[in-house]
């Protein structure tokens, strides 16, 4: 059955009251998550991580090592899930894909002239096409923030939908780079554009710009997802990325998802953390729940 949806006027996107958002967010941080509730949340969060290396100095050696870590987060502890995906530049997709064969871990690739996105449509499309051809399961694209801030919403919309087309069956995550959009109203508007243009996920940041993911920004994006779901019944995923390095903060995010969108989103199919250093902090917390004491940083491998 074919469904199409009315495209709204993005200039009329719902408005956001920053004070109200911050008050709501503060409430998520006071929920009590302890013992079995905490262990369950930690494993869930670990399973939602996109383990990432996005450096100029990336090599296939580095990527292979990270992929091994992704599948063997901490073999000393039992029942530890893998992460959801690894995220690499397009030229390392094939290496990652090979290294992860049989693990069920997805390979995501940033494309579209990540992180600035300042290039032509043709270059972006071919960047995406290359990553998809190399076997990327997921594409993390950046929007043209300059065009957005100039008010060229149609340009941004068309850009996303043309990239979505090239993605084929690979899932598309649209990075808004919220740190450059400045206001929550802009973030809401950019979320709506990305969602209606075909994003499978919306994502806060590249990690290259500060501030990256924050809870208020993520809440506004979750509310955009919710409004779209109310209208269409279609689930769009969410990926906060950058700056979430502690388990405690990750759990606050899970509480936020739990109370805003409910359990349909509490799976790595629809919620991800773009946060590499988070993984070892979670492992440290899981080990603490198991052994009763904290172990040093060197008891957890870095790859």
């Amino acid at each position, binding site marked *: 059955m074919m469904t199409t949806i009315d495209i709204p006027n993005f200039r009329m996107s719902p408005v956001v009251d920053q004070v109200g958002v911050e008050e709501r967010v503060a409430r998520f941080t006071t929920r*009590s*998550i302890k013992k079995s509730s905490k262990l369950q949340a930690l494993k869930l969060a670990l399973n939602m991580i996109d383990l990432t290396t996005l450096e100029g100095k990336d090599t296939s050696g580095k990527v292979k090592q990270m992929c091994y870590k992704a599948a063997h987060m901490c073999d000393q502890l039992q029942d530890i899930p893998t992460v959801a995906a690894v995220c690499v530049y397009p030229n390392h997709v094939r290496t990652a894909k090979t290294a992860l064969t049989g693990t069920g871990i997805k390979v995501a690739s940033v494309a579209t002239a990540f992180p600035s996105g300042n290039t032509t449509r043709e270059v972006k499309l071919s960047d995406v096409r290359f990553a998809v051809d190399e076997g990327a399961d997921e594409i993390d694209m950046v929007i043209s923030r300059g065009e957005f801030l100039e008010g060229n919403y149609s340009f941004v919309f068309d850009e996303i939908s043309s990239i979505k087309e090239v993605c084929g069956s690979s899932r598309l995550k649209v990075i808004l780079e919220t740190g450059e959009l400045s206001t929550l109203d802009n973030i809401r508007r950019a979320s709506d554009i990305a969602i209606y243009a075909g994003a499978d996920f919306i994502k806060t940041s590249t990690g290259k710009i500060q501030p990256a993911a924050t809870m208020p920004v993520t809440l506004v994006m979750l509310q955009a997802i919710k409004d779209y779901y109310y209208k269409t019944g279609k689930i769009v995923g969410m990926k906060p990325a950058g700056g979430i390095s502690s388990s405690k903060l990750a759990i606050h995010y899970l509480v936020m998802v739990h*109370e805003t969108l409910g359990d349909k989103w509490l799976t790595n199919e629809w919620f991800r953390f773009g946060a590499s250093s988070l993984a070892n902090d979670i492992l440290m917390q899981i080990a603490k729940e198991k052994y009763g004491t904290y172990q040093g940083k060197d008891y957890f491998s870095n790859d």
Partner: protein
Amino acid sequence: MNKTKTSEQPDTSLNFFNDWKYAPAPESKDHIQLKKQYGLFINGEFVPPTSKKYFDTINPATEEKLAEIAEADEKDVDLAVNAAAKAYNNVWKKMPGKERAKYIYRIARMIQERAREFAVIETMDGGKPIRESRDIDVPLAANHFFYYAGWADKLNYAFPNRNPQPLGVAGQIIPWNFPLLMAAWKIAPALATGNCVVLKPAETTSLTALKLAEIIAESGLPNGVVNIVTGFGKTGAAIVNHPKVNKVAFTGSTDVGKIIQKAIAGTSKRVTLELGGKAANIVFDDAPIDQAVEGIVNGIFFNQGHVCCAGSRLLVQEGVADIVIRKLKDRMETLIVGDPLDKNTDIGAINSKEQLLKIQEYIKIGINEGAELHQSSCSLPNKGFFCKPTLFLNTSQSHRLVQEEIFGPVLAVQTFRTVEEAIEKANNIPYGLSAGIWTDKGSKIFNLTTKMRAGVVWANTYNKFDPTSPFGGYKESGFGREGGLHGLLPYLSL
């Protein structure tokens, strides 16, 4: 844009009941000190009531007895008022403002030091969630003492060239919804302006006022400056009718407010009344909808709706009514109703069985009036007095649900079409305590604030309190202001 219709509506349901549960986090009761029996606090010490009568105070969440409270009769009230009059004439009115301020500061600091104990007792005795007593009631109570301590030596600057003078003995009667906070609202400005106090807490929630009496005794405040007598309506009447009481301050129901005003007619007693309310929370179609939904929840479910300024009428513009109600219903599913001492709890226990019966009666009235009932699907504890968060949809101005104060977690939802209609509906009610306005447009806010016949108007927020801001009502919501510079006036002759 092209558009095809689907034959079936898509599933857009949200589910908040997965297998990931928050961990119970009950606040410990080990550190609190409660006596088995409390006397009356008169002339700086706890004394047994001449009537020798005591009544039980219970925890509304468990129905367990917490302590026995003395019931003051006319003789006890007479002792208390005489103690206050003596302290006023001999000590307090002669004391320079900056010296009075030191005592008030000291009380504020001692409340802060014992904040945790106060919060736990407030929650046990009254049923409100610990999150609220800990984060709102107790800190605000301390802040009221801090704020009015600052005014004590500056009254001549507050009212230049007017020679402000205290009135004498203030008889103060407070309700059960914010027991400690209301005591602070009453006592702090009275002391700052040089008056002495006889205060009666509500019979279901005397404990924190009695703990405050312990602090006052410890603070070294001269004997008799503050007296706290416990009891029922008769005790309150004895205070109001006592000839040596110069000023009556009452917060409570409109019915009792009317009785008080009749009782003091023909006397020289001054009076302020802070009575009921039935506030309109008005959501326009250009409002930040998600934050407005939070404001609606905070407006009506804060303190189980036991709030005189609760946003108990939702006026929502027709263009956004469906989405607002949809979001509100989903949000209600995430509210945690249960043990008030648990830090996760959003909605605690109804203060008393009597109040629960009254709320249930109104729910029946609403159903009989044909309004559409919607309640959260949460389960309620087996013991104690609890009520599900409740909405009534499709109500009109003529429904009793819309006109009468329920004082519980029950919201009447009405729709409107234009700004004029919203103003008309908001004001077309015997009460006038508060209102809320939700819109992204500043000019609309300023237009409406001038048109609302309400003492407090919140814009894009709700239920925000601060000692520096005056609070009080119009019409049947009473008169006089508490808080801020305005809050000094009822305790002074100028």
